[in-house]
């Protein structure tokens, strides 16, 4: 088997007395679609927050492509090619699509102390292309994200991650609160990632969604990994059993 793209070893996290991650060890391989399931408080979010740079571990080690890393903010993780897509948290509804695609990574024409004039034409052109690449059809890059449906927003978030050539995409409950039709769309996006050679970590409460678009499933309970199997070797019943 290929070397893991992300190797997590002995990860620990405490929240004032609560042991949220107990010695978690997990290898994620290139191009695989990993489903991460577990009840609320099982430690999924903590694990994801550490991988995406919003929280710091209290112990253990993360290696990306063999190199040990320590993220102190989300930007560090993005720079290493790890992009996280949240249900709510990744788009600003009062801003246009083009501006959302480039938040925090705006192309500028010359800059002083990191502040420069935006290259708005490039932002527009590239966001149109990025959105078309994920087979999403939107009217204009100047439309406000607030005017898009939930599924379209997730599409734009995924387009953004692909535009910045992320290697690993973490999708944190991307199908929550979406209609059936929209959910299909998002699952379609996740399936398409594999063809683009992007590794994905798909977190969901919904086992059916996980079984539909993942190759492997990891179940967490009480801060530990309690199951780690290929999709073909397990069943929804077995996972419910261990949770």
């Amino acid at each position, binding site marked *: 088997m290929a070397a893991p793209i992300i190797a997590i070893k002995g990860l620990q996290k405490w929240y004032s007395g609560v042991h949220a991650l107990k010695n978690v060890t997990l290898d994620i391989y290139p191009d695989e679609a990993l489903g991460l399931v577990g009840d609320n408080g099982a430690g999924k979010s903590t694990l994801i927050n550490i991988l995406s740079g*919003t929280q710091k571990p209290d112990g253990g080690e993360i290696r990306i492509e063999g190199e040990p890393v320590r993220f102190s903010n989300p930007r560090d993780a993005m720079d290493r090619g790890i992009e996280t897509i949240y249900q709510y948290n990744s788009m600003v509804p009062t801003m246009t699509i083009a501006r959302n695609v480039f938040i925090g990574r705006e192309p500028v024409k010359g800059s002083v102390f990191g*502040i420069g004039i935006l290259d708005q034409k490039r932002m527009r052109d590239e966001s149109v292309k990025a959105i078309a690449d994920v087979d999403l059809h939107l009217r204009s890059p100047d439309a406000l994200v607030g005017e898009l449906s939930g599924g379209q927003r997730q599409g734009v978030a995924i387009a953004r991650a692909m535009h910045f050539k992320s290697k690993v995409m973490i999708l944190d409950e991307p199908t929550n609160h979406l209609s059936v039709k929209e959910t299909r769309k998002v699952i379609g996006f996740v399936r398409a990632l594999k063809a683009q050679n992007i590794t994905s970590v798909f977190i969901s409460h919904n086992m059916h969604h996980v079984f539909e678009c993942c190759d492997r499933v990891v179940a967490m309970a009480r801060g530990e990994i309690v199951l780690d199997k290929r999709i073909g070797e397990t069943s929804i019943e077995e996972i419910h059993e261990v949770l």
Partner: protein
Amino acid sequence: MKRLMKIYLEKPELAAVVFLLLLLLVFQIRSNGVFLNTQNVRGMLGLLPEMGLVAIGVTLLMICGEFDLSVGSVFALTPMTMAVMLAAGVPFAPAFAAGLAIAALIGFFNGFITIRFAIPSFITTLGMLFIARSLTVVISGGFPPVIPANALPKWLFTIYVGPGDLFRMSFFWFVAVAILVTVLLSRTNFGNWVRATGGFLPAAQSMGIPTARVKVACFMICSVLAGFAGTIQVMRLGAPLPSIGEGLELQAVSAAVIGGASLAGGIGTIFGGIIGAALIRVIDNGLVLSQVDANWFKMAIGFLTIFAVVMNAWLRKRGRAMKVET
């Protein structure tokens, strides 16, 4: 046509412009033509920069999702600092710089306390309103210091220039600052961060924007502009009074809101804030010239503020509901 309508409905500052033009017309008629004569326009344009500069800063900060109630006090403290130093024989440039430095420091403090202790900026800056006002009175010693004659570079800030002496120099400073801040907000990456920070903080944070630093920067810009505006007023009047700028903080918020800024952050334009400030000045002046009892002024501003927010919300909803191919 429908497309134009949608654009119009989604830009509340345009509604404010229309309202401003309408008011100009009404006051012109009501005052029998006095309102728009050279002298009165000169008077209004001479006062506008002072409130306009404050409104620019407050609008920027509101777009960033924060609030500054201390601008009125900083408006007084900055020139008082300068005046006390001038009276002690310090030359203009260092005295002026010291005043603005105090304003910047207050802005930094407002931002730092708000973010470090995660408390509403309403509270931080309410406290600062009292602190800065008190400091102003204390350093003035109760009596306004006498600014030595010729200590102020009036030619740079307050003399009349332009055709028919229509403008004060301060107006050009105001226009320059307005353009600068507008460009900063709408054309730079920093502006994108400000809007994202105010629009939806969790998204801005998850995309790695240094939101704390962005907020502190906006607090500081807001405070420095308020201090600069106060300094201009003192140069115009020739003497610093410890009471100037009282109530200005709320007028500035009104201006921002009338111009379409949202208290919740993320929405608004600098141009809107300026139009809001212009509306307030025009109402103030127009009521007097229309021989309406001046005590109605606050009533008018009050109604306008509430009306503007209700209208803006409605217009935005209508605009959003209009589906057009763009």
